[in-house]
């Protein structure tokens, strides 16, 4: 059992330093150095060729779109873009790459020296980005054996469909001075990157698919010490929540070790989602020697100043600025904005409002009803077969009094079932509110006659009983009535 220290005690004695390496898989159609498709989930080894299988005599050629994405990411991170830079071979022996090297960048990354400003609980933090470089993803290993892990595996199976998919690795400088907020700052940074990649439309950044992966370096230094402590690197922390949990755990584990007079071992650790702990992985007893050298099969990338400026002009509004602007426009508080981001509804709400819907209503439907349905169906919100225009149309019908919320839900159900546009569903299902007072009065009279006790209580001034009658009327009208109007009619009769 690993000893851990109370979080407060860690902070009393130590200052944490964190460093984050985030890998973003680009959503290009083809791979980094060959024309094989990058589609997720294809039949194993159906998206390979001599280049990504590393067969002798094959020659890589760089994907221009990947370079463009790399530059745009670099610019969005406030980086300098290198006017000239080469690829490098990172040599290692592991079957996830057939070539025995990964094509990456070494001392000439395409983007370097950037920064990101974050606000965490009202406090500003600047994260310095050391570099963002281009590289390729590796193949997918499946370990066959009793444990399903490398340890105890009898053999391993390889699918190279992912090998060669373009990746951008974004590396921070050590993040200092965050104190107790270290885990939240790290989480906010990864969350910011995710929003930024989405806004740039360069990656689908689905952490659960591995298209955004995070490795977290963590060390503790005794308070006031000049030098950083010995760090551990926790690999593949694959959700925002895990970033926060993994860092918190490592701080507590290292704190216990150090206070006890021990030393932190420099090593790779793995985060266990189920227990919220990290465990030792491969120890770096022998320092890795990748023998990097310039890739002779690829010529340097030298983006012209004109190209860089052209790409700079395509940068979207920064997520933080956009979020602030929308919060104001929608009159939404921080908590509401968090919900919106959590369900991925920002774009949809913005488009729905642009199509004429009141912000309040657009927010309510996307974050409530529609997010629930997406969740039930196991799909992303934007994958639902309903457009912001449809939602705006429903909102307009509610505003005009033709629909109430209950009927609106049925309209959504119809649209999602493919019955046509909102208007078409309203007409086909006959969902409009009955505004004919005659029919309503008749239903009200019936409800009163059927519930003499309730009616008597309302006559005695016990207005809270009115709900029961409204419910009966709404039921009789199959929900197609304006509850407010029903209330008025009941009170006219009994008030």
């Amino acid at each position, binding site marked *: 059992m690993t000893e851990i220290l109370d979080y407060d005690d860690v902070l009393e004695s130590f200052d944490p330093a964190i460093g984050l390496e985030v890998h973003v898989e680009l959503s290009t159609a083809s791979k980094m150095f060959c024309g094989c498709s990058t589609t997720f989930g294809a*039949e194993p080894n159906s998206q390979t060729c*001599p280049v990504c299988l590393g067969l002798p005599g094959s020659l890589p050629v760089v994907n221009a779109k990947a370079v463009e994405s790399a530059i745009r990411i670099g610019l969005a991170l406030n980086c300098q873009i290198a006017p000239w830079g080469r690829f490098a071979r990172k040599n290692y022996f592991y079957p996830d790459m057939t070539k025995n090297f990964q094509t990456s960048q070494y001392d000439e990354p395409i983007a370097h020296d950037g920064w990101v400003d974050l606000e965490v609980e009202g406090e500003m933090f600047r994260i310095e980005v050391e570099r963002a470089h281009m590289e390729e993803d590796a193949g997918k290993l499946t370990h066959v054996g009793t444990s399903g892990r490398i340890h105890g595996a009898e053999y391993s199976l390889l699918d190279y469909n992912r090998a060669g998919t373009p990746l951008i690795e974004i590396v921070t400088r050590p993040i200092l001075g965050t104190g107790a907020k270290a885990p939240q700052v790290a989480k906010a940074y990864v969350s910011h990157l995710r929003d930024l990649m989405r806004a740039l439309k360069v990656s689908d950044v689905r952490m659960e698919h591995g298209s955004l992966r995070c490795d977290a370096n963590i060390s503790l230094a005794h308070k006031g010490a000049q030098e950083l402590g010995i760090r551990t690197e926790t690999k593949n922390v694959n959700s925002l929540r895990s970033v926060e949990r993994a860092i918190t755990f490592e701080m507590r584990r290292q704190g216990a070790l150090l206070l006890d007079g021990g030393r932190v071992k420099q090593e790779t650790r793995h985060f266990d989602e189920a227990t919220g702990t990290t465990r030792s992985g491969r120890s770096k007893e022998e320092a890795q020697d990748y023998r990097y050298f310039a890739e002779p099969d690829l010529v340097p990338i030298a983006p012209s100043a004109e190209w860089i400026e052209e790409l700079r002009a395509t940068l979207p509004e920064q997520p933080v600025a956009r979020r602030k602007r929308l919060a104001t426009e929608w009159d939404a508080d921080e908590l509401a904005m968090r919900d919106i981001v959590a369900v991925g509804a920002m774009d949809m709400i913005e488009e729905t409002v642009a199509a004429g819907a009141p912000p309040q209503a657009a927010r309510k439907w996307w974050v409530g009803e529609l997010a629930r349905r997406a969740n039930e169906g196991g799909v992303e919100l934007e994958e639902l077969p309903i457009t912001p225009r449809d939602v705006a149309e429903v909102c307009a019908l509610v505003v005009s009094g033709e629909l109430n919320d209950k009927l609106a839900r049925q309209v959504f159900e119809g649209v999602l079932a493919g019955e046509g546009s909102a208007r078409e569903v309203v007409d086909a299902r006959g969902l409009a509110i009955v505004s004919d007072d005659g029919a309503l009065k008749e239903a009200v009279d019936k409800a009163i006659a059927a519930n003499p006790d309730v009616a008597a209580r309302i006559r005695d001034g016990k207005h809270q009983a009115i709900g029961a009658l409204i419910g009966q009327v709404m039921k009789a009208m199959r929900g197609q009535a304006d509850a407010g109007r029903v209330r008025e009619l009941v009170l006219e009769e009994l008030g």
Partner: protein
Amino acid sequence: MALTADDVARLAGLARLHLTEAECAELAPELDIILSSVDQVAAVARDDIPMMTHALPLTNVMRDDVVTPSLTPEQALSGAPATEDGRFRVPQILGEDA
């Protein structure tokens, strides 16, 4: 500085080459000749001569992001010593504990 047999043994280890002590001892002076030849070239190159890693002065050779046909899984696996379920099968990986 002369290359030693230990240097060769270390490089061989990194490159996964199985060399005997005798082979390391024999290769060290041979590799040393190659390295000293490179040193001679390096001595001529002054600071104003940029380092060269390609014979041709080309930059930005790129292709459009267009998908081209891949091999079939059968073709991809045709040279593999062992396969299973449409995948390459490799022996137990290293002796590492992970």
